[in-house]
């Protein structure tokens, strides 16, 4: 069984850093999908199953906060954990997003082991083996 992970960030460097952290984690990663903004991410998940979403906030076209607000209108986050990985460190922002259904918030800069711990925990809690 292997996981399908969606990484959402307008910065290609940041996406690569997150992808690298996920790949180094030892998790059984089947596929990593990438999106450059919230709109691309929503379009992608409308057509593809993912096991977890790792998303930035500050992005053009549609921000991570706007993306989460759209997801909150559906039951997406009751099924699929969404983790925000962002430079924003405002506690108010974190509270707002968690109230909408975000599962975890990891401030940048992050250590790869932090990504591993959060992703492992959430996938374990989700109780599924992924898209195998």
């Amino acid at each position, binding site marked *: 069984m292997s996981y399908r992970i969606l990484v959402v960030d*307008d*910065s*290609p*460097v*940041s996406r*690569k*850093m997150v992808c*690298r952290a996920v790949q180094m984690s030892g998790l059984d990663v089947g596929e990593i999908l990438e999106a450059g903004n919230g709109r691309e991410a929503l379009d992608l998940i409308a057509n593809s199953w993912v096991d977890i979403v790792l998303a930035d906030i*500050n*992005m*053009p076209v549609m921000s991570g906060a706007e993306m989460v607000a759209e997801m909150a209108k559906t039951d997406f986050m009751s099924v699929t954990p969404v983790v925000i990985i*962002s*430079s*924003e*460190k*405002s*506690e*108010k*922002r974190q509270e*707002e997003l968690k109230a909408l259904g975000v599962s975890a918030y990891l*401030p*940048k*800069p992050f250590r790869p082991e932090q990504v591993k711990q959060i992703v492992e925990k959430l996938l374990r809690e989700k109780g599924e083996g992924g898209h195998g």
Partner: protein
Amino acid sequence: MADAPSADKLTELSLSLLADAAFVFAERSPEPLATNQSMLVARLLIEHDVKWELVVCVELDLGMVLAANLLGIENDSDEARNAAGDAVGELANILAGSVSIEFHGVHTICKIGIPTVAVEPGQIFGGTLAKATRNCHFVTEEGAHLAIALVPRGKA
């Protein structure tokens, strides 16, 4: 209106970010950044009641080192060269998150803009640094230079 973080605080935030995220170790430089060469410059706005522009000016080779360290690739690779601008922009983005907390605390949401990155001649970035309220110049262990500045940009 919130005051800009002190130069010491901006220095502390910048140096710890460089070390923690990019494994680049630097210290305050006694000399200002030279303006006789072009630099890789990332700019973004931090907005709440007023707008501040965070400006990160980096020597081109240092930009490649930053990209290489962030991505775990060779310094002198084409991939590092191509990613240098984005790496400097991303570091500016991360620094902006910390700086916005210094401005307004953890209970306020500031708008952090999308960074723009360009190779700028000294005339351009030098003019910006001259207008900065906070202007910190650094030199790395390897002798590369960079500057980080906060420039007031009026009311939001």
